[in-house]
């Protein structure tokens, strides 16, 4: 076993942080370490936190860290912010709200930039959660970028997905339209001390009741919180525990882990396959000609791409 992987398994913080960095940067050493770590993962409760920008996700995560620590659990957080599409750089400021936990040896917080990934996660969020899981953290929280209506990748990653809303987002609560309503295992109405909270609660409850639910299935609760005041946080932590217990009781936890492995695998397969095919396709003599033809609009992009792939 590689030396660094064994240190990660012992929970050594700097080593875990370094392996995540290697994975993020696409360094082979990271993949080698992950191969050792992955079989040791699968114990942590992975909780996704998603919702529109300004909903208070980071403050909520901060309060949840405190609640989980009171329950004696070791907690890791992956907090994701967008990369600039222009420079590729990023300003990652989620942890400003969580810094009171910075020196707690049982809390690990990692900021990640999306690095061009759409869907609310970063390119290597899956890998990072596997490393943190293998390090022995009991709960791994993943805070997505502020999402709109179809950035729902977190569902493939988390056992339990929290969808955070706030009062005053508009009469029909734009942010929970369509997709995002279906993905929540727990709905949070944060900033519930603000005006408009009762109306927002009514709308949310109505929409939740309209959800098709199979007999005996988990019924997503709506929890009101004021994270900045630490109100409602224990109830929220209870709901997270209840959802995990429900998954366990129905044997769905193993199924969720299996599905997560499958998604991870398929995504890698797509990446590797695309890389190989693009390498092969662009090596050939016909590639520069086709590219020139596409640029000159002498051929449509569909036909050009089909021709190249067919020639492999």
């Amino acid at each position, binding site marked *: 076993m590689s030396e660094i992987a064994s240190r990660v398994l012992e929970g050594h913080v700097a080593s875990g942080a370094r392996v995540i960095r290697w994975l993020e940067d696409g360094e082979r050493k990271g993949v080698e370490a992950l191969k050792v770590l992955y079989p040791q993962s699968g114990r942590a409760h992975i909780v996704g936190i998603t919702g529109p920008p300004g909903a208070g996700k980071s403050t909520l995560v901060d309060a949840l860290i405190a609640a989980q620590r009171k329950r004696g659990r070791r907690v890791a957080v992956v907090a994701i912010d967008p990369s*600039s599409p222009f420079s590729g750089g990023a300003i990652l400021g989620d942890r400003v709200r969580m810094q009171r936990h910075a020196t707690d040896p049982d809390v*690990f917080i*990692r900021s990640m930039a999306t690095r061009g990934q759409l869907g609310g996660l970063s390119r290597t969020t899956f890998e990072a959660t596997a490393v943190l899981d293998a390090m022995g953290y009991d709960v791994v929280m993943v805070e997505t970028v502020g999402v709109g209506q179809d950035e729902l990748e977190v569902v493939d990653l988390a056992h339990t997905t929290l969808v955070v809303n706030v009062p005053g987002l508009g009469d029909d609560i734009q942010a929970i339209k369509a997709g995002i309503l279906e993905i929540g295992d727990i709905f949070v109405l944060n900033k519930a001390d603000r005006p408009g909270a009762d109306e927002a609660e009514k709308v949310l409850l109505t929409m939740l009741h309209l959800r098709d639910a199979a007999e005996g299935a988990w019924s997503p609760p709506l929890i009101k919180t004021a994270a900045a005041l630490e109100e409602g946080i224990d109830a929220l932590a209870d709901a997270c525990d209840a959802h995990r217990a429900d998954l366990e009781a129905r044997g769905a936890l193993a199924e969720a882990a299996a599905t997560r492995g499958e998604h991870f695998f398929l995504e890698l397969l797509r990446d590797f396959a695309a890389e190989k095919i693009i390498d092969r396709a662009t090596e050939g003599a016909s590639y520069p000609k086709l590219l020139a033809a596409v640029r000159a609009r002498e051929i449509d992009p569909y036909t050009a791409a089909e021709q190249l792939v067919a020639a492999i």
Partner: protein
Amino acid sequence: MPRIRVLLAKLGLDAHTIGVTVIAQALRDAGMEVIYSGLKQTPEMVSSTAIQEDVDVVGLSSLSAAHMSHFPRVVELLREGGAGDKLVLGGGVIPEEDEQELLAAGLHKVFTMGTETGEIVAYIQDWVAQRDAAS
């Protein structure tokens, strides 16, 4: 693809964020990932944050005369935590006579008031390039 990661931290009690914001934006525009950890950070918070985030660079800012006690302490804590390989920079209101002492304590460079952001960007890029060439 590797990206340079930088932690920017404000030590001490001052609440001035304009300078640190300007630097954060300049570093982002140069393609770096900047982790900002907020105001009133202690050396302990800064060093554990730098380790968890595995940054290449730690940028310390102080406008309230906390630099002489706090900056060297960050360097010390990073070394103790096995993270002595990071570039540690200081900035803010720092009298000339303090600069030498800070450099002796292990800071790589001190940028005083009026430094162009481009100079900081170039310094970081050069340091990282040299480090990577050496490894």
